[in-house]
């Protein structure tokens, strides 16, 4: 029993070290090439500014603000998130990656990278939008929670779909098509939650939990199936 527990702890520590190594590698590459993050931030900045300039004189309802926030976050993030696996395939580094890492380590590291990137994009987009549109959520904690839970669900979906489409030809179009049924419920609930928080509604714990549970289900299934997706030739 003790030996088993010890083995479990040791395996956990090794896994953690390898994940940190993989994450460091992805961050080095991302910040040296700055390909994805620059495009995403440029998209976020340009669309937020355009929306604020064109609707400056209009008094938009909170629901429309919520839709705009999520459309900007979604498309800014989509520019970069699917690339995390596709880049490994396109640059021919997937063999080097596979030969030195366990499939599970690759999945967890890519998921964490996508999650951090999504949060960075959200942290840039949301205050920028609130500032330019001169609005402030009535219930800030609810607003932040809805944006956080929605981002978590979207990053878990895009990581999994990125892994699936990386192994196919026609990657970009396939990504858009297969992401549709999974992203729709998440976006729909996130938009409703954000609108409610902007209007000062009470915290909708059930829907917040749904977004987290949805992420949990996607991550669990992906973790179990990732090995078969990644090793498919």
């Amino acid at each position, binding site marked *: 029993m003790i030996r088993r527990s010890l083995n479990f702890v040791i395996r956990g520590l090794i896994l953690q070290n390898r994940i940190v190594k993989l994450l460091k*590698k992805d961050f080095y590459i991302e910040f*040296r*090439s700055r390909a994805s993050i620059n495009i995403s931030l440029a998209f976020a900045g340009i669309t937020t500014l355009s929306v604020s300039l064109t609707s400056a004189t209009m008094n938009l309802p909170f629901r429309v603000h919520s839709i705009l926030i999520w459309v900007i976050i979604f498309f800014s993030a989509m520019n970069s998130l699917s690339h995390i696996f596709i880049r490994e395939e396109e640059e*021919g580094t997937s*063999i*080097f990656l596979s*030969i*030195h890492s*366990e499939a599970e380590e690759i999945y967890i590291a890519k998921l964490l990278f996508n999650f951090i990137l999504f949060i960075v994009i959200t942290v840039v987009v949301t205050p920028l939008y609130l500032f330019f549109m001169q609005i402030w959520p009535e219930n800030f904690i609810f607003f932040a929670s809805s944006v956080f839970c929605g981002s978590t669900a979207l990053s878990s979906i895009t990581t999994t779909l990125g892994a699936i489409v990386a192994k196919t030809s026609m990657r970009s179009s396939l990504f858009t098509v297969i992401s549709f049924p999974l992203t729709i419920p998440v976006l729909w609930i996130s938009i409703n939650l954000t609108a409610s928080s902007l209007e000062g509604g009470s915290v909708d714990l059930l829907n917040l939990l749904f977004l987290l549970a949805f992420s949990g289900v996607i991550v669990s299934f992906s973790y179990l199936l990732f090995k078969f997706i990644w090793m498919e*030739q």
Partner: protein
Amino acid sequence: MHERYLIEASNLSRRFGKSRIFRGISFSVESGECFFITGPNGSGKSTLVQIIAGLQKPSEGKLAIKLNGKEILESLWSHIGFASPAMNLYERLTVYENASFAFRGKDKSLINHYISLFGLGKHKDKEARILSSGLRQRLRLITAMINSPGIVLLDEPGSNLDVEGKDVLFREIEKIKKESLVIIASNDPEELKLCHKGIDLAKQNS
């Protein structure tokens, strides 16, 4: 107990769609042996090496990789060193960072040791994208050997290497083949001479 590896392939075949790459490949190699795979271009040398590395699955047949008589069913990668022209390195990482990515040990001085051994000492901090193809090949070989793995799979190991690079490569293969299981896929007679036995895929496929 000393680690003894054994690779047993029986009746392996590989198809991509309707086109068959090879069929009926059977062999057995163990630690302390060097095994060559040769054959003309397109005969499936690289594919066979990738199947052994666990990067591809055979269409038919069975491949068993055993350690001290027990089949390795998980974490195969931790027993294998692999270098192939099909394996691109991370262009935006430096020589040291690429080697460090592949390194699984604790003694980090070994990274510098292997970088110097393969003559990349003065290129250590350069990103892989600015290296020549010969220097990249040296870096691939470093990543294959840096963990002193029990199984070393080398696909065209001498490609793009100059005389000095080949000298180091041959010296290292002579050294590691005493204890490790080495498989070399190549058409270069000099590289094939390093091995005790092997297969010619041209004859197998005929």
